[in-house]
């Protein structure tokens, strides 16, 4: 579904990614783990078009997307929920969700998606008329996720969704990701919580200093000496 082929990218000349290749098959949950500053977010930002790669190609369902602006990538069903939630704090929960469905004009379709999101996150229905900024961090994360779903994604990129959440909420969040995956959405999960992410995913990649150093199924990576030493502290 998504094919990232030896991309390099950076910010104002400073390289953040070097020769990164990865692929995601339809229906999978794929995770990218790695420590802070390894370039995980840059991968997400490059796929969604916020950062243009300096070399390499990205194809989505067979079509090259690496030179497209973000809004055209979203229109193709590739949706990025950024790190740090980035909800529109002064707008209400409903307005945030409706903006998530910006690429569609059909009111019945928007209503259908709203129902689906409210089913997954009932709290958002309760807080529908509240401003996003007045909600707790966990609720804002639910909103960011729900807003991403409003675009009816084929592939959903989640960048550090568990950042700053209490352990109990992290569990809820991972349950929600599992539930989203069951509805047929392909997921690329970028996480610092290596253990939870590897348990959840089908396959994973380990990123260090902007390079993919190893890849495998979740179970394989959890067994790998390198991952256990570097990220699981075992």
């Amino acid at each position, binding site marked *: 579904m998504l094919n990232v082929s030896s991309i390099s990218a950076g910010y104002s000349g400073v390289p953040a990614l070097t020769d990164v290749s990865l692929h995601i098959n339809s229906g999978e949950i794929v995770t990218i783990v790695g420590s802070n500053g390894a370039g995980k977010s840059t991968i997400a930002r490059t796929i969604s078009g916020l950062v243009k790669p300096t070399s390499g190609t990205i194809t989505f369902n067979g079509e090259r997307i690496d030179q497209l602006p973000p809004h055209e990538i979203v229109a193709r069903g590739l949706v990025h929920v*950024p790190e740090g939630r980035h909800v*529109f*704090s*002064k707008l209400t929960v409903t307005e945030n969700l409706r*903006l998530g469905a*910006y690429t569609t004009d059909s009111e019945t379709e928007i209503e259908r998606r709203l129902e689906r999101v409210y089913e997954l996150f009932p709290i958002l229905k309760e807080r529908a008329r509240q401003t996003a900024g007045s909600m707790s961090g966990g609720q804002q994360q639910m909103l960011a996720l729900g807003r991403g779903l409003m675009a009816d994604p084929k592939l959903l990129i989640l960048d550090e969704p568990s950042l700053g959440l209490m352990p109990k909420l992290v569990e809820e969040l991972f349950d929600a990701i599992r539930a989203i995956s069951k509805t047929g959405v392909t997921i690329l999960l970028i996480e610092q919580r290596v253990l939870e992410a590897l348990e959840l995913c089908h396959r994973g990649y380990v990123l260090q200093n902007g390079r993919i150093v190893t890849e495998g199924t979740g179970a394989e990576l959890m067994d790998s000496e390198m991952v256990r030493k570097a990220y699981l502290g075992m």
Partner: protein
Amino acid sequence: MYLQLTVGGLLLGCVYGLVAMGLSLIYGVMGIVNFAHGAFVMLAMYASFWLNRFLGLDPVLSSPLIALLMFGFGVLMYHAVIGKVLEGPFLARLLVTFGLSIFLINSAQFLWSPDYRMVENPMFRGIIMLGPVFIERPKLVASIGSLIVAGLIYWFVRKTKTGLAIQAISLDRMAASLMGINIERLNGYAFGLGCACAGAAGAFLAEFYYIFPDVGTMFGLVALVAVALGGFGSTEGALIGAILIGIIETVGGFIVGSEFKYALVFLAYLVIVILRPRGLMGWGAD
């Protein structure tokens, strides 16, 4: 007497408010201080004047048309000039509208000479008495018209999908682009809307005000003060700020002498910028 002055200030403030609202909208969405805003008011005044001269259209009646023309002009200006420097260095962003302003004012001088002109036989003239207060009819029409246009713009930004997208850009540009919003196109619309505000205000002003190439400068500056007063990025704040300025200008001008009225306005500006840099209800792009 003070009641009379306050009413006069209120009427003037409403027109300032419309100009300021456009300025605030542009700043909130793309972080650009539009120093050419006054020049846009001037262009709209000339457009009204020529429409009146050649087609006999009264400026008040032609105001929707002028607003529409200025919307188109704004979209064009955005894509031809403003958008090109938006990602550029800070100084370029700061100076581009300043340069545009000088260009437009001097073009007007070249094309239409520095002569003062006035619309002949405006539809609204004379005064009406409201209790003890005299109200000049063209100013009343201008202020009501300005409030209507301001209300329409406010409704558009708050209640329509495009308006919501414009708000989203002003709150978080990156997140907005991840929603599938075409930032460039919406920036163009926002700039156009801001110009339409200046355009409608210019048409209302043309009904009773002298028209000359530099006429917009003071309106642009006063709008800037109003926006600073209300808070950059807050459209309601800009409107309220502008009404306050209208009152400061007329009432204060009466007390200290009308040749010093703008000194008072800018003194108010300085005090606000020092005491409350974010304005009365400010937010928006940093």
